[in-house]
């Protein structure tokens, strides 16, 4: 509080923006904290006999007790939570449940080791998708607004409305049917590993990236179009028109600068949405990413892995939404030039 007031005195002009951003950042950190607590506490919701379930029927009482001690279940919950947060911050997510046996031979792997390479794969897929989808959506949205109510606008709109209402796996299987089965252009399985070269890797992830692109372009394009069309009704645009500016001048020079905030927000929001969409798409294309790992772990009830994946997904989601909010605040002219 004191620091913020000091700031207010020093930089009087930036005060409203900075204060809002600081507030939003604080809220984001608090959310992350609570979300991590929820994800953490999920392990204590497990049924009491899960030690036996993990270790098998033949587990002796001692091994079960040792297992519980390893998870720290003999300590009070707040202590466990702080321990967990500390080790997560160091990159240690604990040890996977799978591969454990009552015999004492422990073939289990650390969660970080399981997640590491898969996280890279997922980020690669999401990155490629974003690089294709964002410029494409902006282009389509801008041109649709420019040629509003034309045949082009209507057909783009109808197409995006259809892709929005379809489940991801439907889009994915249609693409597989067309581009992998009937006309084999791309492989239907995106099985990459560390040794796959970049060109081959790109070819293999073409279909998953295309699926994700179709799903998120639709939303981004519609929002871009709506943001610009919304502005076209304002008096200063009318002024520009009366001045004799051409249609494209009006949109690019007058409307677009004011539309950046909602557009940036919707882009960040859709990238956050990618995080969720990636789960289904990875399963369809058997892509070795973190989403598939999470689904497998849910089926195997491998809670440490599920927790780690959920934390990564939720963290990315929260951070991206936070960035979107901050962009919205920073680019808002009303906040930048306080009265």
């Amino acid at each position, binding site marked *: 509080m004191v620091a913020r007031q000091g700031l207010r005195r020093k930089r009087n002009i930036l005060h409203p923006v900075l204060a809002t951003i600081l507030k939003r950042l604080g809220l984001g950190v608090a959310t992350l904290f609570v979300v991590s607590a929820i994800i953490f506490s999920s392990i204590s919701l497990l049924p009491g006999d899960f030690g036996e379930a993990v270790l098998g029927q033949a587990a002796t009482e001692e091994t079960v007790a040792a297992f519980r001690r390893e998870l720290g279940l003999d300590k009070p919950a707040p202590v466990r939570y702080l321990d967990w947060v500390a080790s997560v911050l160091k990159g240690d997510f604990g040890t996977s449940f799978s591969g454990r046996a009552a015999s004492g031979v422990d073939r289990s792997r650390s969660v970080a080791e399981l997640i590491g390479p898969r996280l890279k794969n997922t980020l690669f897929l999401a990155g490629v998708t974003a690089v294709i989808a964002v410029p494409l959506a902006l282009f389509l949205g801008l041109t649709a607004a420019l040629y509003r109510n034309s045949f082009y606008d209507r057909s783009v709109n109808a197409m995006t409305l259809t892709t929005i*209402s*379809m*489940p991801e*796996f439907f889009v994915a299987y249609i693409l597989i*049917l067309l581009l992998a*089965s009937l006309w084999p252009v791309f492989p239907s399985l995106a099985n990459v590993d560390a040794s796959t070269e970049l060109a081959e890797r790109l070819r293999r992830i073409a279909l998953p990236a295309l699926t994700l692109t179709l799903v998120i372009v639709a939303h981004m394009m519609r929002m871009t179009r709506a943001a610009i069309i919304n502005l076209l009704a304002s008096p200063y645009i009318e002024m520009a028109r009366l001045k004799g500016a051409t249609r494209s001048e009006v949109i690019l020079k007058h409307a677009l600068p004011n539309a950046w905030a909602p557009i940036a927000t919707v882009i960040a929001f859709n990238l956050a949405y990618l995080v969720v969409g990636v789960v289904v798409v990875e399963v369809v294309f058997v892509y070795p990413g973190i989403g598939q790992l999470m689904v497998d772990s849910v089926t195997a009830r491998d*809670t440490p892995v599920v927790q780690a994946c959920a934390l990564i*997904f939720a963290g990315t989601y929260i951070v991206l939404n936070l960035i979107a909010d901050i962009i919205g605040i920073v680019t808002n002219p009303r906040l930048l030039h306080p009265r």
Partner: protein
Amino acid sequence: MSQTPETYSAAAEVAAVRKRRGRFERSWIALKKAPISAWFGLIVVSAYVFVALFAPLLAPYGEAEIFPTPFGPWDETHRFGTDQIGRDIFTRLIYGARNTMGIALMTTLLSFIIGGGLGLVAAINRSWLDQILSRSVDVLMAIPSLIFALMLLSIFGSTVTSLIVIIAVLDSTRVFRLTRAVAINVVVMDYVEAARLRGEKIGWIMRREILPNIMPPLIAEFGLRFSFVFLTIAALSFLGVGIQPPTADWGSMVRENASLIQFAQYDIKAGLTPLLPAAAIALLTVAVNFVVDWFLHTSSGLRDEH
């Protein structure tokens, strides 16, 4: 020939009571004005409901009846072939309508009871209760719901009950937000104040004073939430953690028959088989969206951006 009066009496015309249109008549007039997309949506939705209600009569075989040939081709006995253990796909598609839609409908209803109820209470109460509810909803909404659902399912196991409860609770956050937002504008009205002053209980105020006035956005939201829940359940079943076999369900049917798609080059019908349940899901979502779109337009008087 009937007798027509030759005199005109203004008094008679003014005195003639204008008949109020009945509910049915009014909805028929609204329907006649509906655009083609809304008609399409309504027809598709009613067809789905019909199939879901009369599934046992329409289906040629039993839901889990197994025939000797797995992955059988499309022919007279099995219209869309058989699946990986020899169950008739056409039958399972019909039962799938019942199961998938039934579960999605129950989930949406539950989420509206939870979210709508709490939202109304928060809007009326506006004190610490509102604060607590709104902040916890903020936190819950910060986690992507599919991820949260996956995590909870890994803990509680994939039974139909836990599926319904988990998704309903996660989804009720959005219902809560909407209900609270629209109800807050109604709570400050004078007639609510009057009801409060005459000593009505909170239940009466919620049900009789506020609810009727916030119905249209809630009904539209119900359609949207239903298609969202429907897609989430389909996605979860597709991932293998939703509705479990032998219950027929569209999401898991896509997964089970997905391998057939590689044979599309030799037999296009086989390649299309896994797409049938997926298309059934997509068609229903599109139809519901069309209907909701039309409903929003007529009830709010919103027009397209001009």
